[in-house]
């Protein structure tokens, strides 16, 4: 076990590292922008505001949205391996986006986002309903069921997209990532900031709800209302993020687990660290994707998929070892 001082040093280093990554994300890219240039050249400043700042902000918000959603879902389901992409929430909001595209092709993006959020909410509710009917809630079965649910919804989405000739649009959106995030496009993500604050405020109630319905009720918490609130927050955060930047797999799973390994399970204390570490991880993935094949780029979600899967398997195996001892 790490001692308190090393833990504190590690957290400080993470915070500083994330800060450095934010700066790097602002400065790296196809269009040359330097610190000196920003002060002397108005064109550079303009470009900086149109492209770099929105992109970095979008990355930060998406990271916060997915990691906080992961925390909330893990509390509600009492399972460490649940997050929007392993519970089908993200796939449902993808379906919602497609339905919006089919029913109201010329609707404003906000309406499509609303539809995606509604679908994400329905999907999460279905997942929770299935969980309630599962006889065994072993920590490994729950994510397996969620992944299969997501696969079914994904197959349905592909089928629907194919019959409406939207498969190409769907593929493009799925591998979209952050490359086309510019001013006027990312603003809905500010909603995530509100959700993050809200999550921080209700963190204590979520922690209690995480103990289970009976204990939570004994502690004077209206369990059903807290769960409903949590699901709604997750649905909105996931829905908006999915529509703007696509799926970001495993982030909501890996980050909360890392934080709770370092700091234990006090949600209110953890929440800011979840946001910071999530941001750092996603920014790092995005920077790798931007530099490896420049001037082209690899979506951050792709790199996150590989890195996240490796970390996830590590976590699962670690849990097995603990269970054996």
């Amino acid at each position, binding site marked *: 076990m790490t001692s308190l001082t090393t833990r504190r040093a590690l957290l400080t280093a993470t915070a500083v590292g994330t800060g450095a990554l934010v700066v790097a994300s602002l400065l790296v890219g196809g269009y040359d922008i330097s610190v000196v240039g920003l002060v002397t050249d108005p064109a550079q400043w303009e470009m900086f505001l149109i492209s770099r700042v929105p992109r970095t902000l979008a990355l930060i918000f998406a990271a916060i949205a997915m990691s906080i959603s992961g925390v909330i879902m893990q509390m509600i389901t009492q399972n460490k*391996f649940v997050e929007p992409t392993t519970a089908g929430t993200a796939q449902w909001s993808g379906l919602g986006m497609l339905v919006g595209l089919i029913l109201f092709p010329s609707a404003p993006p906000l309406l499509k986002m609303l539809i995606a959020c509604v679908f994400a909410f329905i999907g999460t509710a279905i997942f929770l309903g*299935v969980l309630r*009917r*599962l*006889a*065994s809630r*072993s920590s*490994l*079965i729950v*994510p*397996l*069921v969620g*992944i*299969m*649910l997501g*696969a*079914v919804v994904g*197959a*349905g989405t*592909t*089928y629907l997209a*194919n019959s409406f000739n939207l498969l190409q649009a769907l593929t493009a959106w799925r*591998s979209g990532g952050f490359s086309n995030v510019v001013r006027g496009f990312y603003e809905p993500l500010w909603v995530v900031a509100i959700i993050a604050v809200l999550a921080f405020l209700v963190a204590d109630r979520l922690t209690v709800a995480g103990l289970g319905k009976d204990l939570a009720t004994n502690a004077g918490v209206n369990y059903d209302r807290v769960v409903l609130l949590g699901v709604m927050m997750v649905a909105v955060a996931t829905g908006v993020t999915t529509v703007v930047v696509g799926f970001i*797999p495993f982030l909501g799973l890996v980050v909360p687990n890392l934080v709770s390994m370092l700091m234990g399970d006090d949600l209110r204390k953890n929440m800011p660290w979840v946001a910071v570490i999530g941001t750092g991880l996603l920014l790092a993935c995005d920077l790798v994707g931007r530099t*490896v*094949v420049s001037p*082209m780029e*690899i979506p951050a979600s*792709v*790199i*996150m*998929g*590989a890195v996240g*899967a*490796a970390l*996830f*398997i590590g976590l*699962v*195996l670690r849990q*097995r070892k603990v*269970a*054996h001892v």
Partner: protein
Amino acid sequence: MSSADVKAVAAAAGVSRGMRLRRGARRLPTLSPKARLLLAAGILVVAIACYLLLFIRGSFAFSFDRRLTMLGAMTIAAFTQGVGTVIFHTVTSNRILSPSIMGFDSLYTLMQTLMVFFFGGAALAQTEGIPKLLAQTALMVVFATILYRWLFSGRFGSLFLLLLVGVVFGMAFDSLSTFVQRLLDPTDYDLLSTRLFGRMSNVEAGYLPIAAGICVLVALFLWQRRHRLDTLLLGRETATNLGISYKRELTLMLIVIALLVALSTALVGPMTFFGFVVAILSYQFTGTHKHAYVMPMAFLVGLTTLVVGQFVLQHIFYASGMLSVIIEFGGGILFLILILRKGTL
């Protein structure tokens, strides 16, 4: 313990399990398993005749030839997926998942992608042929064996651990493939993508004999072990008491499964829910759990599903490319219904 004893105990177990199954299932007219197999075979023959001979426009020889190749591909797919899933269900003692979820198709895609990345798109055309099919299958079997041996040796929840890790490996492979594909130059990428999509309808006819040969060998091997498989259904303790070397048998069967699924993926491409649908249907249709009946039934049901599905889609809905998508979707729904009814995996 002699093999006759094993056979007798296994038969008894099969009967009791069969009765339990039948109580839960919709009642079918009471026919002996043998009669049911004959019935299924009869339906299959009619379906194949319809598929091969009806609705031919233009040159008979050309259409017939094409359909025959397609039928060959469907036969291999039905055998590998159907029988493979039945054994998978037996050794993992679950009735819901199928071995394809373990990331085999993703591994196949990753292997193809890496080859193009390291040797260029031209290598894809040059290495075409039976040795490559065999090499790919062998690689996938090796991967699966390592994975199984590593994860299955634990004591607690190791089955679900195996499944979950398999699924996540699949996701990681997918991401890696996408990553590497982005690094390829456009010509190589084009060459690769024609190779990765839509394989069911344009299978290389030259591969079929060797694939069929492997399938026949596997079928003989499994037929010889059908009673041991029945015994595995009784669980680890009972099987061990009956003189079965449980771990050895399990590893052997997992390798066979890996071989079947790898062959199927290398030949006709990914099919996640197909094997699962086929296995579920064949349990219902056979009315017993004896592998001597369930395995042939799985093959018959699988092939009938594919042939009828292809026939209907091609001539009635004019959408022949959608077969696998529809099977996936229908299978997914069936999966959901089952999981809600049973409440476990």
